[in-house]
């Protein structure tokens, strides 16, 4: 009973959050590398500027795929009991990773790989943390390489989230309505004997290449 109420509440909250995201950003998906209607397992990797990043990706994904697309997020932020845990776990079904790795046994790559084995798609942010600098994209951490190596058959899809940093710049609490785009690029796969550095560079430039050329700022 309690869990059914929770599930209905989570569905409603999910609807509310995506409706709010649309009202604020009129988010427009741009599919450059594949047909979103094909229900295929994917690892989406995106630039990370705000807590709303995975919300935008989630909002533009076809409904049937939202349920099985799990954002990978920091447990320290999303495991706080209350609203965050409800949103993180019940609404978005996030895969929570301990960021402070002292005394933690689970290997994050193994956690992600087993989620993939269960049929989930993942949303990851290879910069590792929100980019609060003026640089358009931070250097990638190596996790994406190790994950792509661990499950080489899964499509690794670059996703550029455009303009969301202007909606809610760092240090502000009230978002302003501005139009955002989510640009999906062509899937990548790690090469047979591709080195870590080479793959990270390739993935990073594939993501940067999706950034729309025409912008106000």
């Amino acid at each position: 009973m309690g869990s059914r109420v929770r599930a209905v509440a989570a569905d409603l909250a999910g609807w509310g959050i995506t409706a709010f995201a649309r009202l604020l950003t009129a988010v427009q998906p741009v599919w450059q590398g594949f047909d979103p209607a094909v229900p295929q397992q994917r690892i989406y990797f995106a630039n990370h500027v705000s807590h709303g990043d995975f919300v935008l990706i989630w909002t533009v994904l076809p409904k049937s795929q939202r349920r099985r697309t799990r954002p990978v997020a920091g447990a320290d932020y999303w495991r706080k009991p209350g609203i965050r845990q409800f949103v993180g776990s019940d609404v978005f079904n996030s895969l929570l990773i301990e960021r402070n790795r002292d005394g933690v046994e689970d290997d994050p790559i193994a956690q992600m790989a087993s989620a993939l084995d269960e049929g989930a798609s993942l949303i990851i942010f290879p910069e590792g943390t929100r980019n609060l600098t003026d640089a358009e994209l931070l250097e990638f951490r190596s996790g994406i390489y190790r994950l792509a190596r661990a499950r080489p058959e899964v499509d690794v899809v670059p996703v550029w989230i455009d303009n969301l940093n202007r909606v809610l710049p760092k240090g502000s609490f009230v978002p302003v309505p501005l139009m955002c785009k989510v640009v999906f690029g062509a899937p990548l796969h790690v090469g047979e004997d591709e080195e870590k550095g080479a793959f990270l560079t390739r993935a990073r430039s594939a993501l940067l290449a999706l950034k729309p050329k025409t912008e106000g700022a």
Partner: protein
Amino acid sequence: MANVHSDLLATIAGIGGVLIFASLIGWVLQRRYSPNGENAVVENLNDRTRAWWVMAITISVALLGGRTGVLILFFICSFAALREFMTLTNASRADHNTLVAAFFVVLPVQFYLVWIGWYGMYSIFIPVYVFLLLPFVSALSGETRNFLIRISEMQWALMICVFCVSHVPALMNLTIPGHEGRGVLLIAWLVITVQLSDVLQYVWGKLAGRHKIAPRLSPSKTVEGFLGGALSATAIGMALNFMTPFTLWQAGLMGLCVTMMGFLGGLVMSAIKRDRGVKDWGHAIAGHGGFIDRLDSVLFAAPIYFHLLRYYWSV
């Protein structure tokens, strides 16, 4: 004087008839030239017609809702237009508080002033008070780079997307002797005449367009399209003068005036899009682009129409 409701229903029925006719033409064209969706012009035409159905139904519901309905509809349009416009400005992180004020203070206050009918304030709130006070919010951030550009763009955005849009529902505030309670019809006449002018300019341009007016701004606008569209829309505006306090020739002059303003508005807004390197303001309306793409002509016509009516007709 006929009942406002029956006139409004007749108008809506007329729009419905025109759209059924347009949908039939689109259907025939598609069967002949684009059975598998291969003809981009025909597909775009049908997208536009379908979007027109949605827009016509929306505005009909709003007009039937009277003052409240019209205010809510144009409040939403204003919000969506401002969202599109601000996206293309240089407004930066330093202007965040200014943007918050623009969206969550200026926009609702302007529509509130229209709602309570305080003409002396809603006609100067944005051009005077906001103009003088809002740049200060950006100045507080201490960021001086592109300062004049940023504050000018934001003021322009507010003038176009809030001030001008709010002059459509403001038409309901005019008291015209012998025309009391018929404000929705004034709005319907403006929107029909200006939008038909856009549509007919497109049609005339496609059929007879030869000489481009401003190829660098808008390659599809031609002298033939403009003249044909503006004149035929004006003729329709004259035929619809039962909706207005105008005599036949007054309706003609007013029609020329609003279609001309609409045309100029379209060109100005195109120039801004060219500058920013975008084709459309947004993607909300299939086949048309964004809200501003569809509203640009009405935005430019509304305040002039409002003031001409106010000066010559209202008491």
